[in-house]
C-alpha cells in the first residue's frame, strides 16, 4: 500500500512539473508571436505581420474585454467562453459515442478474426472521406430523421461528425491493446476455463490500457477538431466554430476578435486533453511507470 501512495505522490509531482512546462510553453508562444512581428517590421517576411493580420498580444487581450456588440453588456471573452463550453459539451458527447463505438468495433474485431479482416479496411477507408464533404451530407440525411419525440437537429449532426472522427483512433488503438496480452497469459486463462467474456474483462481489457490511453488522447483531440470543423462547415449556432466565422468577417473593424475565438478553441482542446489526462491517471494507477506513454 505504501508503494501505491508514493506512486500517486510522484505522479502528482510530475503533474506539477508538466504544468510548469505548459505555462512556459505559453510564454514562449507569446514571445515568438511578438518576435515575429518585430522581425517583420525590420525585414520583409513572406507573410503579413501588420497589426491588422497579427494583432499584438495585448490588443487580443483588450479585444477580449470589449463588448460583444456596441452598447452590449457582454464582453467578447464571455461570449467566447460560453461558446467554448458549448463546444466542449458537444465534443464530449461525440467523444463518448466515438469511444463506445470504437471499443465495440475493437472487441468484435479481436474476438472474430473474420471481422478484423472484413471490417478494418472499412474503418480505415471511413477516415479518407474529407470531413468537409461529409458534413453537409450528414446534416442533409439527419434532417429527415425523427423518431417519436426525438428530432435529429444540427447538434446531433455535429456530435455525429465528432464521433465519426473520434472512433477511428480509438478502435485501432484498442484493437492493438486487446491483442497485447501475451500468449502465455491467454493460455493461462484458457487453462482456468475462463469464458470469452471473463477473458475480456480480467485479461484483455486491463492489458490494453497502455495502448488505450494514447488512443483516448488522440480520440479526444479528434472529437474537438471534429466539433469545431463541423460547426464551421454546418454553421451550427452557439459553438466556437460559428464564432470563428462570424469574427473573421469583422477582422477589418476588430482584427483581435477572431483570435479571441481561436484561443477559445485552443482552450477547449486543452480542457479535453486535461480530462483525458485525469482518466489516464485513473486507468494506469496500478501499472509500472516505465510501461506508460
Amino acid at each position: 500500500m505504501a508503494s501505491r501512495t508514493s506512486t500517486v505522490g510522484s505522479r502528482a509531482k510530475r503533474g506539477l512539473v508538466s504544468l510548469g512546462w505548459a505555462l512556459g510553453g505559453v510564454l514562449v508562444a507569446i514571445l515568438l508571436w511578438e518576435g515575429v512581428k518585430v522581425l517583420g517590421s525590420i525585414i520583409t517576411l513572406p507573410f503579413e505581420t501588420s497589426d491588422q493580420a497579427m494583432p499584438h498580444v495585448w490588443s487580443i487581450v483588450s479585444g477580449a474585454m470589449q463588448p460583444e456588440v456596441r452598447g452590449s453588456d457582454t464582453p467578447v471573452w464571455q461570449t467566447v467562453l460560453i461558446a467554448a463550453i458549448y463546444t466542449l459539451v458537444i465534443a464530449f458527447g461525440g467523444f463518448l459515442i466515438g469511444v463506445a463505438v470504437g471499443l465495440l468495433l475493437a472487441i468484435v474485431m479481436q474476438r472474430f478474426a473474420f471481422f478484423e479482416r472484413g471490417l478494418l479496411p472499412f474503418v480505415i477507408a471511413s477516415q479518407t472521406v474529407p470531413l468537409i464533404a461529409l458534413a453537409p451530407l450528414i446534416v442533409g440525411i439527419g434532417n429527415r430523421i425523427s423518431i417519436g419525440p426525438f428530432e435529429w437537429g444540427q447538434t446531433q449532426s455535429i456530435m455525429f461528425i465528432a464521433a465519426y472522427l473520434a472512433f477511428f483512433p480509438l478502435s485501432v488503438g484498442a484493437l492493438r491493446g486487446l491483442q497485447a496480452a501475451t500468449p502465455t497469459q491467454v493460455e493461462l486463462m484458457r487453462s482456468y476455463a475462463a469464458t470469452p467474456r471473463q477473458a475480456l474483462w480480467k485479461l484483455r481489457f486491463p492489458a490494453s490500457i497502455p495502448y488505450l490511453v494514447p488512443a483516448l488522447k488522440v480520440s479526444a483531440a479528434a472529437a474537438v477538431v471534429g466539433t469545431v470543423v463541423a460547426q464551421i462547415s454546418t454553421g451550427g449556432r452557439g459553438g466556437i466554430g460559428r464564432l470563428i466565422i462570424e469574427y473573421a468577417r469583422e477582422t477589418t473593424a476588430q482584427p483581435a476578435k477572431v483570435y479571441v475565438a481561436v484561443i477559445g478553441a485552443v482552450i477547449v482542446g486543452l480542457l479535453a486533453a486535461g480530462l483525458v489526462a485525469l482518466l489516464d491517471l485513473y486507468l494506469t494507477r496500478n501499472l509500472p511507470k516505465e510501461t506508460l506513454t
Partner: protein
Amino acid sequence: MSTLAVHAEGVWKIFNEGANNEVTALSDVSIDVGKGEFVSLIGPSGCGKSTLLRVIADLIPPTRGSVSVAGVTPHEAREKHQYGMAFQQAALLDWRTVRRNVELPLELAGWDKDKRKARALELLEMVQLQDFADHRPWELSGGMQQRVAIARSLATDPEILLMDEPFGALDEMTRERMQNELLRISKATGTSVVFVTHSIPEAVYLSNRVVVMSPRPGRITHVVAVDLGERNEDTRESDAFYDSVTAVREALRGRATPVGEGGARLAETS
C-alpha cells in the same frame, strides 16, 4: 483408471494435416502418470514435450488417440479446475496485487471473496511470500514471481500440476532452491506433476521417472526410472544422482535401449 493422474494412449498431434507444411509433433505417444508421481518430459527443441503438455491440458486437441486426466477427459478436467499450470514466464497480471494474482483462478472458479482471500494468503505463506501479498508483481524478482505463479497454479488444490519449463528463466542458485520448494510442496499436497524441462540434472533431481523424447516426429524414446529416495542437500552430489544423469544423457543421445511398443507405461518401470 481412477488411480492415474494422467493416462494417454496412442496420442498423435499433426499440425496442418494434409497441407504441405504438415508437422507431426506427436507420434503414437502413450504415457501414464500415477497419483502423486513426479514425471519429467525432456528432449531437444521440437520433440513435442510442450505439445504433449498442452494436449493433456486441453489447450490443443490431439489429432488421434485418447487422453484422460484425473479419470475424466482433459476438457472436463479443465472445466473442473483439476489441474494447475505454470509456464516459463510467470505471466502474472501487472495490474493486480500478488494476492489478487493468486486469487485469479479462484475468481474464475466462482469462489466467494473471503474464501479466496484466505486461500490466497495460505498459498502465499506456503511459498513464503506472505509479506508481499499487497505488492505488485513488477516489484518482485524473477524467482519470487515464479513462486507466485506456482502458488497460483495450486490455488484450486488441483490433483495435477502441469509445468512447462517453469524455472527455465531463473539463475542456477534460485533454480535449485525452487526445485526443493516444488518437491516440498508437491509432497505436502500430494499433487502429481508433469514437468517439461531442458535440464538433465533438474529432471533427475525432481522426478520419479524421466520421459525422454526425440524430434521429427515427436515421440517417446526412453523412460528412465529414478530412485534417489528422499531428496536432500547431498542428493545432488551422490553417485546415484550422477548415475541417473548419465542414464538420461545416454538416452538423449540415443545410446540406451529404446522403450518398446507400450511407450511410457507405469507397469514397465515400477
